[in-house]
């Protein structure tokens, strides 16, 4: 039931915003720990090699070097670095340190030293004898019979087929007689590139011992609880001996849904019994951390003349790089977050994630849907064109609607079968209408593009994502009341800059009739806060938000009970409002009075609520994206002139923060579509590891971005909310591709759309026309 909202759906200030803006906010590195050692990892210069020998004798002589670890010094425990729930759907193919290296940037040894300089020098002084092996640098040929085997070790577990370099495979088929009813068949291949998350704060982890000799890990992570579990597993220490603290996080975007360095830092701390810190350089972040899985996507579809889509057949080869972290689940999402958007009676999906000797794929905002949406939305555009139908009209006729379901929901989940669900909120038509009006679709689409070499065009893309992983993800929260009527909200939910601390405080404040500034939020600390899977899968607002709401409701019920006794009034129909309990009969009490009474006066107890939440549905947010581009036919340069993202995220708990999520995702998506790419030399060495050459957009590159929030009410979410964080990164690549087509009549299916690629396509076409 909808009730008038006081705090929710208001653009209150981000509660940690001012501390960030004044430099007070404390990120991992913003504390001094006495006696801290600097750690540095030796990275492999080879894409594929066996380590025959490691000579650390020279490195040990460097003044200030305290400890050097190699694979000989650590227990060999197969595990995954994917920060996922137990049991992780990613293969156990990683070792804290291994005797084989599988990509340029893979770790060989770890040093801890008194200074950063000594650690860096020591790393350079370690002499490694390698037996260089032939690398696999082409995902399409990774499965060939004669391809070198990347994971030939015997102890790795749950690899789909190590003989074929196959990390993971999944598929399903619903329907029958594929392509028999279709008047047209489309058959296209799309290719996406290596890209990195580029959080401004690179991975950084500290570890030290507390007075109980427990390992305290202060780390920039999206998944503190998974980090605790995986560190314990990899180092063979009990979970109870590990505490993980997540302070402020300087951006994650999925990069920090990885338990990447916590193990090795903890191992160094264990070995030295000293505090240790490891901070990645920008180059290490680019090549040794995680990336977006590059994919080769083969999409076939069938279409009837009346505009009905009959079939989809989506075949994906995903390059997971040297390790299979998130390989299965990212690949699943390429289908599960893309295929249900349009109705078709026959749907087939197959995904193979292959190992190569290249950087490791991981979780990256959009999580596979980004790549899938590129293929789908470009093909949808092409299908509409075949019917000479407006692409907006075609999408409206075919997209999933309120009350409808898709067989894909059941057929495909995250690494296993999914959960059947039907759509209970959908504002996509309105997104399409409002976005189209904002960009000027009617006036611009399909119209003449101006004289001279600079052509203009507009494009569209429609999107869906999910909100948490149904049946798997769990979030919990505890809220307790203080003497002044304020509350502590303790959550495992992990704010990594997204504003979730604020959004969740707003939800609690709404329940308790107070302002969000009267809630002291603490997230997250495995010793202090209840469990939460962490910040991923677009889950925090939807899932953890519900846990917060339930916990706050428990506290509210206790408050009403105490107030009822204090006023000797039946608290039924009482409400909490403006920091007061207001009884049905009009009598009032402040929360402060209630708190003092419950803590000190009579029948004392702590007013507190604690609740967990799991979900059995993953309601998709929807979006329609539009852009206008300019294409220079003489240089091939593509410039985005303006971008409009209309998003249905249910109730936006904090509209400004929801807009911010959208705009940030859009700009990341735009630079991904146009320029972002890790390039490699023939030996698999990255050529652009620093930001001098790996480009992300600055203020002068960024086009004006307009967000339109289209409110709907999602009955399964807190106050009608769905997710908003990931969906909008999926739009720019297809949206821009479609706009380029509108501008110059060329469909680009290989990203990024660099100027040289565009010019080459123009020349190919010109040559083709001459031949005709």
């Amino acid at each position, binding site marked *: 039931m909808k009730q008038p909202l006081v705090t929710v759906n208001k653009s209150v200030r981000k509660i940690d915003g001012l501390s960030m803006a004044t430099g007070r906010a404390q990120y991992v590195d913003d504390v001094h720990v006495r006696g801290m050692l600097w750690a540095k990892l030796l990275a492999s210069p080879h894409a594929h090699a066996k380590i025959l020998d490691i000579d650390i004798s020279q490195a040990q002589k460097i003044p200030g070097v305290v400890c050097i670890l190699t694979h000989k010094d650590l227990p060999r425990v197969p595990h995954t670095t994917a920060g996922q729930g137990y049991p992780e759907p990613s293969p156990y193919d990683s070792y804290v340190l291994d005797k084989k290296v599988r990509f340029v940037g893979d770790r060989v040894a770890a040093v801890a030293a008194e200074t950063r*300089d000594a650690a860096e020098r020591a790393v350079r002084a370690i002499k490694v004898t390698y037996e260089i092996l032939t690398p696999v640098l082409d995902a399409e040929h990774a499965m060939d019979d004669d391809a070198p085997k990347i994971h030939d070790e015997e102890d790795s577990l749950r690899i789909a087929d190590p003989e074929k370099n196959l990390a993971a495979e999944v598929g399903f088929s619903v329907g029958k007689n594929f392509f028999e009813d279709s008047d047209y068949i489309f058959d296209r291949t799309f290719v996406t590139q290596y890209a990195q998350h580029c959080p401004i704060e690179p991975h950084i982890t500290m570890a030290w011992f507390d007075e109980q000799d427990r390992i305290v890990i202060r780390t920039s992570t999206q998944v503190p609880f998974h980090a605790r579990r995986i560190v314990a597993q990899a180092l063979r220490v009990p979970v109870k001996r590990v505490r993980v603290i997540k302070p402020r996080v300087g951006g994650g975007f999925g990069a920090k849904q990885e338990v990447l360095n916590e193990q090795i830092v903890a191992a160094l701390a264990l070995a030295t019994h000293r505090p240790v810190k490891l901070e990645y350089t920008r180059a290490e972040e680019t090549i040794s951390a995680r990336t977006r899985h590059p994919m080769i996507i083969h999409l076939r579809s069938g279409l009837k003349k009346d505009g009905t889509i009959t079939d989809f057949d989506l075949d994906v080869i995903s390059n997971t790089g040297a390790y299979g972290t998130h390989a299965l689940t990212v690949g699943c999402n390429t289908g599960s977050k893309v295929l249900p958007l349009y109705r078709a009676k026959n749907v087939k999906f197959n995904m193979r994630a292959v190992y190569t000797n290249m950087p490791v794929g991981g979780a990256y905002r959009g999580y596979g849907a980004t790549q899938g949406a590129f293929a789908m939305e470009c093909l949808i555009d092409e299908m509409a064109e075949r019917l000479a139908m407006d692409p907006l009209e075609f999408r409206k006729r075919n997209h999933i609607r309120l009350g409808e379901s898709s067989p894909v929901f059941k057929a495909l989940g995250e690494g296993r079968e999914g959960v059947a669900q039907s759509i209970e909120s959908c504002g996509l038509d309105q997104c399409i209408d409002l976005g189209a009006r904002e960009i000027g679709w009617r006036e611009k689409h399909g119209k003449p593009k101006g004289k001279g070499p600079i052509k203009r065009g507009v494009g569209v893309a429609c999107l869906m994502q999910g909100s948490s992983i149904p049946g798997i993800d769990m979030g919990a929260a505890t809220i307790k009341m203080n003497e002044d009527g304020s509350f502590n909200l303790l959550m495992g939910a992990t704010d990594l800059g997204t504003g979730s601390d604020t959004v969740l405080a707003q939800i609690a404040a709404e329940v308790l009739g107070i302002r969000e500034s009267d809630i002291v939020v603490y997230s997250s600390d495995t010793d202090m806060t209840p469990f939460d899977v962490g910040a991923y899968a677009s889950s925090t607002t939807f899932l953890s938000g519900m846990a917060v709401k339930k916990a706050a409701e428990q506290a509210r019920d206790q408050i009403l009970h105490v107030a009822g006794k204090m006023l000797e009034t039946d608290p039924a129909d009482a409400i909490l409002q403006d920091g007061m309990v207001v009884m049905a009969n009009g009598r009032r009490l402040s929360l402060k009075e209630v708190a003092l009474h419950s803590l000190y006066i009579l029948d004392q107890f702590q007013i507190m609520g604690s609740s967990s939440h799991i979900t059995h549905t993953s309601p998709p947010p929807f979006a329609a994206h539009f852009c206008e581009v300019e294409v*220079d036919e*003489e*240089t091939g*340069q593509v410039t985005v002139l303006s971008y409009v993202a209309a998003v249905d995220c249910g109730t936006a708990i904090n509209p400004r923060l929801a807009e911010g999520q959208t705009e940030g995702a859009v700009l990341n998506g735009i*630079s991904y579509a*146009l*320029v972002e790419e890790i*390039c490699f*030399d023939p030996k698999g060495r990255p*050529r*652009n590891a620093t930001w*001098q*050459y790996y*480009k992300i*957009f*600055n203020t*002068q*590159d960024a086009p004006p971005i307009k967000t339109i929030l289209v409110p709907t009410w999602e009955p399964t979410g807190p106050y009608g909310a769905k997710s908003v964080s990931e969906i909008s990164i999926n739009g720019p690549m297809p949206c821009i591709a479609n706009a380029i087509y509108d501008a110059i009549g060329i469909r680009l299916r290989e990203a990024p759309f*660099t*100027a*040289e690629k565009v*010019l*080459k396509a123009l020349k190919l076409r010109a040559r083709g026309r001459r031949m005709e």
Partner: protein
Amino acid sequence: MLRTLKEFHYPATVAEALAILQRFDSRASVIAGGTSLGRTDDAKIEAMVDISRMGLAFLKEDKVSLRIGSTNPLQALARSRKLGVFAGGLLARAAASQPSRLLRNAMTLGGSIVLSTPWAEMPPALLTLDAKMIIAGEIERIIPAEEFIGDSKYRVLGRSEILTEVRVPREMASWRSGYSVFARTRTDPAMVIASVALLEDRGTCAGARIVLGGITRRAIRCPAAEKKLVGKKLAPQHFAQAARAAVGGIEVVVDWRASREYRLQVAEVVMRRTLAACWSDGKEGAR
């Protein structure tokens, strides 16, 4: 990291700075903005000679030259009213094309010239305007831009010398100019720089100085292109001819970002547009 660095010196005069450099011989480095030194490794450097406090951030004119002190930050040049009008604002535009305000604030004119990376912003513009480099040392030397720019700093500039000033002939003031950069993004090192100056005399091109940068290891003048324009009443085909001539036979610097062929094609387009825009006084368009 400059592990052996122990001292900073802050000379107040050029003479003082030269004396310190002499004393340290090759164990000292001049520093102005410092943007290229902070992350270098050089196990010899013991002293830094900070030349940013010697009054070299001047901008003045005498009878023959516009004189620009070498420690002017690029941002100051980009903002200078005088440079904004001199020769169609070429120097201001070149300085403004450095893509980060934070770096424009630190990087100096001298640094941009001395380091002279292929993508450095200032050298092509200085070459276009026939600038001269004033070098203080045992003797003062005046080196034309053509000789100085792009060459290894130690071949032209001795260890104990300092680039103090750049002089641009005042007769260039009334030339029109154009300056364009082509790269993947605004912060991407330039793949092509087209820097041009044209002199008009009653509808005829009375002078042309055409320079390419970014695409070549050092900024180069393109005399063949200039010949296509001088003495003519210019029309679009002349710009096309000149642009083609400009890229003819140049030695292209290639990295993984784009192929040689592509760079050449784009350089020609950018040059043609820059010339056209320059001639029409920016009324039509180079990007």
